[in-house]
Every structure is written in C-alpha cells, then in structure tokens.
C-alpha cells in the first residue's frame, strides 16, 4: 500500500453533509478514501427538519451522526469553522491546522435572513436554525409571556409551533397578504389561517415590521408595524427565509450567484473542478433549494462524481437535474400539500376548488386546457396528495371531471390514479421504468431490482414487482413460469397438490421426488409451510427445523439487531388482570420493551435468543400459549366488546372472536391471516380490513373475505349474510382450507381472491355449492388440523435438544455483544447502529 489514499474534505456537517459521508462510504471504505468533515456546531449532524420536536417531552434524539459512528466508519471530524480555502494549493485552514485535500465539498448550508429593522439585535431577538438557537429561545421563554415570529412561511410556522410548545402566547407576522405565500394561494392561506387562529395563535398578515421596540434595558417589548399598529411581545423570532452560506467559497474565488449561492453545474461541481457544493449553500440553475430532499439528491450526485474524479468508481457520471418542489407537510398539526403549478399561473389553466370552513379544508386542482392536472393545493387534508401528485407528474389525461378529484370519496367509489403508477416509493421507480427493464430482458424480480433499484429499500413493493413481471411477460407473449424457484419447476399450488396426493412427509422426500439442488430461502420455507398445513407436525422438529425461516425456527419475530419479540396469544383481545400482571412480570424479569399491537395483544421486544425458552416457561406457567406472531399463520381475531357491554351491540362479538381464534390458531398458510369480529354495523373491530371478517346483524352474522390493510388496502367482500355461528364456522373452515391449498407463496387472501378465476362467485360455488366436490375433504383437513393442534412453545421448552438450539454460541455461554440498548421514554430500544443505514428521506412528511 505505497500509493497515498486520496483525501476528501467536507466543509459542514448538517443533514446533507452527513448524507454525503454515507453516500461516499457506500462506495469507498477507509482503505480507499480518507474522509474528513469540518463541523462548526459542537453537535454533529442532526435532524433539522424536526427541530421543533426538541421542545417535546420526552425530548427525542435528533442526532443523525455520532462520534463513535464516524470513528467506526473512518470519518475524521475537525471541530471548528473553516477559515480559508486555497484552491491552488488545495488546502483548507481550520482550527489552526492546514488540511490538504484532493477533493473538497461545500455543505455549509444557510443562515437565517434577518430583515434590517432597528432593534433586530435587542435582547429577546432570536433566529430559528440550530439546536443552540432553540436552547436560547427556551431559556428566554422562562421569563416571557408572549412571543412573535416574523415570517409566516414554512419555517415561520414551524417556529410558531415551537413557541406554542413553550407555552407562550404566540403570534405570527407575515408581510404578504396571506400565510405561506410561496406555496399557497389566498384561499388556501385563509383556510390555514382559520385553523391556526382556532388554536389560539395570533395571525397578522399584510404587516410590515418597522422596528423592534425595546425598553430602557435594551429588552424587546414588541413590534411596531408600518401604519402605526403594534404588537406586544417579550420575545421575537426571525424566521423570514434563508440565505446560502457562501462567504468562504466567495473569499476563495469560487463563482457565486448575484444574490448568493455557490454556482454548481449538474454534476454539483463548482467553478473549480476539484470542488463541489451541495445543499442549501449551492445555486443550481438560478435556484437555491431550501428543502432537504433536493439536498440529498445533490449529495448522491456529488458523491458519485467526486469518487469518479478520484479514480475510485467507474460507474457513469451522475447528474442533478433540479428537483420538484412539491411538498406535503404537517405544520402545527395542519396538513398542507402543494404540488406542480399550485397557483394556476399556466396560461389557459382552469382551477377547480372546494373549501369547507367547518372542517377547515381547502382543495384545489389546476387543470390544463387539454385536461391534464398541472398542480394543486391541499390544506387540512392531504389524503389525496400522492394520487394527485402522481397525476401531475405523469400528465395523464383525465377521464373524469376534475372536481371529482377533490371531492371526498363516496363510499366504495373508485379513485382515479395515473396509468404509470409509482410502484417503489423508496427509490422512486414507476411502472414504465420497470416495463422498460422487462422489455430489455429482465426476467425475474432479482434482475428488476438490479437494473431499476426498485424493491431495494423497504422491500414492501416486491409483491407488486412480481405481479407486474408476470403481467408484462404475458403481454410480451413470453412463457410465464410461476415456478417456485430454480429448485422446483412447479407453482406453490402444484407442489401442494403433489405433496398432498403423494403423501410426502419430509423435505428430503419432496426434494428427491420433485426438486433439484439443495433448495434455498424461497422453497425451503414454502415446502415447510405446505408440510405443516397438511400434517401439522411441530415446525421445530429436527426434520422440519432446517426449512424454517428464523422466525419459525426460533418461534419468535427477529428484529433489526438480531433479538426477538415475543407475543403470547390473547384470544379476541380478552385478557384478565392476572394475565396482564403475568406478562408485565415477564417483561420486567427479562428487561423487555412493551408495546400494545394493533391486533389487540402485547408485544415484548428485545429478547435474547437464549432467553426465549425461559421466557416461555414463565408465560406457559401463567397460562399463555404461542401467539404465532412469527408464523405465516393465523395471527389474531380482533373484536369489539359487542352486545355484552356496548349499548349498540347486537351480537356477542367477543365470544365469537375467541372461538374463531382458538379454532384456527396455528394453521400454517401461504401468508399470515388476520381476522376481526364486530358486534354491530359500526364495525369497531375493522373486520372488513381483514382476511376474514364477521359483522353482526340483527339476524346473525355477515361473513366478509379477502380484505387487507398494509401496502394495498382492500375492503373485504361480502361472502354470505345472516348466518348462525355454526354456519359461519363451516364456511370459514372451507374458505381457509381452499386458500391454503390454492394460493401462491406469500399471496394474501385479497390478491388470491382477485386472481381467482371467477372471483367471489367461483369461491361461493366451490365452498357453498360444492361444485368441485371437495367440501368434505376441506372439512376433514380442517378437522385434522384442529384435532392435532398443540402449543408449539410448550413442546419446544420440554425438549432439551430443541432448547439447545437457542444458545447464542455453540462453544460458550457468552452473549452477543453486538446487541446494545439505549433508554427511550423509560424503556429499551436498540442503539443506533454505528454503521450506516440508508436514512429515510426527511423533510417532506
């Protein structure tokens, strides 16, 4: 290693500067690139977007970077303000030392603009930019009664929210005739104003502040406006916009814009080829971007190009092409969305709006002459934001009158969405890009991921990618295989039938008869699940354990740091005081984090693998059993209190929920199964968002199937009405077993039902009219499942060989020192990992 390692220096450690270190380290480790950041603030990078939450109780940790994390990632930190940059010698002066660089990046951010009014520097005047600013505001608020924010834009309203949290009588002063003039029109501004005034915040628009008045001690007393009016205030916060911090770059001789900002090209390069600028200090195409999302895009672009220049990367150069300024955010609890040509300035544009002075909502769409959405505004309710933004970005011609886009949806009404749907929102990949990749030869989800990036973030869109791939290949006339994986040339349904008909009982038999190779992480759990559905043998038995995903292998849900969560079954959500105390005692004994789930039970998180058997011994002794929260199996049957307690209830929903949960517990299926039972039409158990839901009627029960929450919410469809409890059970037995037999791997009931040829009618003909003559078989299969059910945790803790598998290390009793906790709101949570994760995009929502 005699070749010197190139050195990249970043001036500034705000959100964008920090993102840049992550982007650089993604491609180049410390052995390839020396990385130094200069941080002026004593705190390393933190989340400035959620600054006002600094006054929340408990106070959240806003930090994005830590010294330990940087140390581990080989990022050197120099504390101090950079004094000078010498472009010829390629050096930076900071804190009395000279740093030589091979590449330099300005990420110096911005400073708050303070209008030049007299008294602006008086005691009691503040800006709103850093955590130090916030601490100073909090100290001053102790002796203050009222506070005024100058600036009624996005940042000003954020600052007003902060003052309100400090208990001050809060006022917002805006020079323009309405609030948020950059984003909203007059009508939207007044809708927002009404709601904000309703919270007790004073709004003063169309006011020009002449001076900050001060008392004899030089302390703020209020604001004097042009025209003679005034506002008393003990504290004044300037939040009237930002200005790029370009002084260092300017002094170094880099080109800057007339009104400030370091000039960059679409490679994020400045006028010096070895120097880049990103974030709010940069001026691109005449514009300074004051939002974090464009800053993150610049960081990505600058990282690629700088590494290319240093010979560390050979991918094609990256380009910044400007950013869409559409925003959706929550200010003072009010949702505001603004996108595209929000004000309708395009010639010939037509604006359609709807305002509701009681709900405090205002919606507007701007439509072009030829009927395409150009932009719009949403105040008070931004539920339609994503759909409308999508229509704007894709320019899809409208097939419905524009007013229907902003009218609150009628129950059951269809929503118009664009033809080119956004499938992966993490990586911003649309259907068209995926179809193009398929046309160019991508034949599986893995290659789609590789060439488009879709599905590489949270992974939530992978099922949609799979569906799109199938449809698109069929459209292109290609043979579509729904083979499980390279080891089995069968679909899950075909394999299920082969195993059922031939009576295979183990993986080895199935692989020898129908598969090849050693299997993989796709076919092993699929076969494991089929064997469990058919034979209901213990999934952790030695012949089945190697097939199970870690959740089924250890009968608990793995979490991000490798520990597990534990969830005992609480049928129907009904639990005794003793039960609650017992769960609490276990949580306390093993130091677990507790959370109430949406399925009406209690999740205990942070369990070490080697504690799981002991935890379960305690839970079993208290009368609990496995809740199968880890399995592709029945999770919970949620219920309301029904006619036993509720004055509206017409049937005993809790008892039915308990009966159903105990009946179907442990049933292994292609995907997880959720259910709910509501005691009247008010539907408090949200049964229609479940795989099977039951809603009470005056005469009995209505059964709904194929509902889903999650990625693609879907209301369950009515399968049969006014049934008795026993009729409900017969119908559900068959429905579930038919699903278990015929669905694809990881296919929820909603998509299964959608793809079932003949749909709901066909389902009825099979499980009610017995058109295929299989009802007796389905009934028998369910009876066998129920007859052979046993608590798998009770079985696991009583078998020493199974318990031995829970040891962290096979050769010592030590524990994983990679598992570390920090305290949050009085409980544990995993310490942020010292390495880099891709952070979610901040600043929009």
């Amino acid at each position: 290693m005699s070749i010197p390692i190139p050195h990249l220096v970043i001036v500034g450690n705000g959100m964008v500067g920090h993102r840049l270190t992550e982007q650089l380290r993604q491609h180049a480790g410390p052995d390839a690139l020396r990385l130094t950041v200069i941080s002026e603030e004593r705190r390393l990078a933190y989340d400035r977007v959620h600054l006002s939450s600094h006054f929340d109780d408990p106070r959240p940790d806003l930090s994005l970077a830590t010294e330990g994390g940087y140390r581990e990632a080989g990022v050197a930190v120099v504390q101090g303000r950079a004094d000078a940059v010498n472009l010829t010698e390629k050096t930076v002066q900071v804190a009395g030392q000279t740093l030589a660089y091979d590449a330099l990046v300005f990420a110096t951010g911005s400073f708050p603009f303070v209008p030049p009014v007299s008294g602006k520097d008086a005691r009691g005047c503040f800006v709103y930019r850093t955590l130090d600013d916030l601490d100073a505001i909090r100290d001053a608020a102790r002796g203050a009664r009222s506070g005024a924010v100058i600036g009624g834009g996005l940042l000003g309203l954020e600052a007003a929210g902060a003052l309100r949290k400090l208990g001050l009588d809060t006022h917002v002063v805006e020079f323009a005739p309405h609030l948020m003039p950059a984003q909203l029109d007059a009508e939207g501004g007044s809708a927002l104003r009404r709601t904000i005034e309703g919270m007790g915040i004073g709004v003063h628009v169309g006011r020009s502040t002449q001076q900050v008045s001060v008392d004899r001690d030089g302390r703020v007393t209020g604001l004097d406006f042009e025209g003679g009016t005034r506002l008393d205030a003990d504290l004044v916060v300037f939040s009237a916009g930002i200005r790029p911090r370009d002084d260092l770059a300017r002094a170094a001789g880099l080109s800057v814009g007339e009104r400030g900002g370091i000039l960059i090209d679409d490679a994020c390069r400045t006028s010096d080829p070895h120097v880049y600028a990103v974030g709010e200090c940069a001026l691109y195409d005449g514009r300074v971007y004051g939002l974090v999302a464009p800053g993150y895009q610049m960081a990505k672009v600058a990282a690629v190009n700088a590494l290319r220049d240093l010979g560390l990367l050979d991918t094609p150069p990256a380009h910044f092409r400007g950013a869409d300024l559409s925003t959706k955010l929550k200010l003072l609890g009010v949702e505001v969305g603004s996108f595209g040509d929000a004000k309708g300035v395009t010639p010939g544009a037509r604006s359609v709006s709807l305002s509701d002075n009681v709900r405090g909502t205002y919606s507007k769409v701007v439509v072009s002459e030829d009927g395409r959405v150009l932009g719009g505004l949403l105040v008070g309710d931004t539920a339609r934001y994503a759909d409308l933004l999508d229509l704007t970005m894709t320019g899809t011609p409208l097939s419905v009158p524009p007013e229907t886009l902003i009218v609150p949806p009628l129950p059951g009404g269809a929503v118009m969405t664009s033809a080119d749907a956004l499938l992966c929102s993490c990586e911003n990949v649309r259907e068209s890009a995926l179809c193009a990749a398929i046309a160019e030869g991508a034949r599986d989800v893995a290659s789609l991921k590789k060439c488009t990036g879709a599905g590489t973030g949270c992974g939530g869109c992978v099922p949609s990618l799979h569906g799109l791939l199938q449809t698109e290949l069929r459209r292109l006339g290609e043979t579509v295989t729904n083979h499980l994986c390279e080891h089995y040339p069968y679909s899950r349904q075909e394999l299920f039938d082969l195993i059922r008909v031939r009576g295979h009982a183990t993986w080895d038999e199935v692989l020898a008869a129908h598969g090849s190779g050693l299997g993989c992480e796709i076919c092993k759990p699929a076969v494991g699940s089929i064997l469990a559905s058919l034979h209901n043998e213990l999934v952790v038995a030695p012949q089945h354990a190697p097939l199970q995903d870690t959740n089924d292998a250890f009968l608990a849900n793995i979490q991000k740091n490798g520990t597990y969560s534990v969830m005992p079954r609480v049928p129907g959500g009904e639990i005794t005081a003793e039960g609650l105390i017992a769960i609490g005692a276990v949580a306390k004994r093993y130091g677990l984090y507790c959370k109430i789930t949406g399925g009406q039970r209690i999740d205990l998180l942070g369990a070490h693998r080697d504690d799981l058997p002991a935890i379960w011994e305690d839970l079993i002794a208290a009368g609990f059993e496995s809740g199968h929260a880890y399995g592709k199996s029945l999770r919970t049957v949620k219920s309301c209190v029904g006619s036993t307690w509720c004055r509206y209830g017409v049937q005993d929903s809790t008892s039915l929920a308990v009966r159903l949960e105990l009946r179907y517990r442990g049933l292994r299926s292609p995907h997880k199964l959720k259910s709910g039972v509501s005691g009247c039409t008010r539907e408090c158990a949200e049964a229609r968002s479940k795989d099977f839901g039951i809603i009470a009627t005056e005469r009995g029960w209505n059964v709904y199937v194929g509902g889903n929450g999650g990625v693609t919410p879907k209301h369950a469809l009515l399968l049969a009405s006014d049934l008795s409890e026993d009729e409900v059970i017969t119908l559900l037995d068959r429905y579930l077993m038919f699903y278990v037999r015929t669905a694809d791997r990881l296919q929820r009931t909603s998509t299964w039902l959608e793809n079932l040829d003949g749909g709901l009618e066909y389902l009825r003909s099979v499980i009610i009219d017995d058109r295929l003559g299989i009802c007796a078989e389905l009934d028998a299969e369910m009876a066998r499942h129920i007859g052979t059910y046993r608590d798998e945790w009770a079985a696991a803790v009583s078998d020493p060989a199974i318990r031995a598998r829970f040891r962290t290390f096979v050769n010592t009793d030590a524990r994983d020192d990679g598992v570390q906790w920090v305290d949050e709101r009085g409980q544990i949570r995993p310490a942020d990992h010292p390495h880099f994760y891709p952070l979610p995009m901040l600043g929009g929502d």
Partner: protein
Amino acid sequence: MTTALTIHPPIPWTRVCALEDILPGTGVCALIQGQQVAVFRVGGRVYATGNRDPYTGANVLSRGLTGSYTAGGVTRVKVASPLLKHAFDLESGLSLDDPRVSVPVYATRTEGGDVWTGSPA
C-alpha cells in the same frame, strides 16, 4: 449498504462443536477470540463465515437459510441473511447482490466427529 469496515484479525484453529450439534442444512455460531464465526453444515460439508450481516450490521448470518444457486452453469452453496435476505456465497463470502460487499470466510475441517475452523493458511 456499507462496505466491510471492520478488520478481521486471523483466528487460530479451534474446535467449535461436535458435527452432530449442527442440524444438517443449518448453522451455529461460535465465539473465537472475540469474533463471531458462523459455521454451516450444508450438502455434507462444513463452511464457516463471519456472523455479521454487512448490510444490517447485526450478528445473524448463522441463523440464515442455506441452499444452492446456479450461476454460469456452476452450482454453488449460499446462505441468506434472515433480516433482509441478502445472500452470500459460502465459499467466497461474496454478496450475491453486490460483489463489492462480502463477509470473511474461514477454513474448516471435521476430525473424529468434531468440527474445527480457523483462518486459511
């Protein structure tokens, strides 16, 4: 998505466990001089890699599902991390998603029913 930043000092040859302590097709984790080593029993052979999943930073690879894959006509063995299912070649340690990412691999041998691992000579 991070490159391997941790340095892996060599480990001495160490007896890990009895071969029968590892269910065929699965892995176990051993602690050797402070380092976590995942030891797998796949297709009649024993493989060893680092236990840390470089994509998530969690020490979980020994709990991944093992299997085989075919690339360029050659069948090789792999393990998929239980967290986000990134797969690694058990012999080379290379990520199947991104060849710039890898996990360390160690040599193994079985001797009289015992499994041993150590840094390659």
